[in-house]
């Protein structure tokens, strides 16, 4: 049987593929980005109270709100994907389960992030409210 095994099957899961440092650094960079962008969002939200839909939409039509909001969405889902991946790897040790859970995680992060970005673009590029 062992001749049927490809070389990759023998080394998978055994050690570094030298991706760790890049992943680690990405997680630090996105955390600082998230911190600054969420400070901006909190200040903006406080100024938008009491959250009339028209007022919120008008705000997001301004490029200087829409662009930071898109960046915030990007950075949030990037940081959250990288972060949850590390947590999953700490607790799920079975290779098959890990593969499956990480697949679901990527699906969630990409789908939810794309929905959020689409909503921002729809407001930003759409016609002003009548």
């Amino acid at each position, binding site marked *: 049987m062992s001749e049927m095994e490809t070389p990759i099957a023998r080394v998978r*899961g*055994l050690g570094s593929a030298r991706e760790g440092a890049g992943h680690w650094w990405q997680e*630090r960079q996105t*955390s*600082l980005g998230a*911190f600054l962008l*969420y400070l901006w969002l*909190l200040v903006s939200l*406080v100024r938008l*109270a*009491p*959250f009339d*839909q028209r007022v*919120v*939409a008008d705000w*997001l039509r301004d490029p200087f709100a829409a662009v930071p909001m898109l960046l915030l*969405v990007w950075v*949030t*889902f990037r940081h*959250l994907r990288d*972060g*949850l991946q590390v*947590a999953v790897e700490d607790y799920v*040790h*079975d*290779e098959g389960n890990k593969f499956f859970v990480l697949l679901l995680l990527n699906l969630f992060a990409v789908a*939810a992030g794309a*929905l*959020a970005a*689409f*909503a*921002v673009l*729809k*407001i930003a590029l*759409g016609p002003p409210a009548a």
Partner: protein
Amino acid sequence: MHRNPDRPLSPHLTVWKWGPHMAVSILHRITGGALATVGALVLVWGLLAAAGPPDAWATFTKWATSWLGILVGIGLSWAFFQHSLSGLRHLVLDIGAGFELRTNKLWANATLAGAVLLTAAFWALVWGLAK
């Protein structure tokens, strides 16, 4: 994983005296997990509702201002402040600073107190605006 179950694990979680640095460490993971799931869903829902028809926005704001919504909101805001402060502490520890016992304990406690204070300040502000 190719781990031999006959080999002993080094004792870790059970042998240490519980301290603020351990609480902050696990809270960072718990708050990160809550923000990444509940928080992310609220963000997506809110943005979709804002981009949608008026009744979609009305449904979202009705939920967000119900007592359940406010409870979730308080929880998420605390999680955000706790995770951000312990996240900033992480970045300092990552450059190799702040490991001296007293300093480490001081800043661990500071994130715990800071997160509660910031949450209270934030909701006092929101309360003031809502009136």
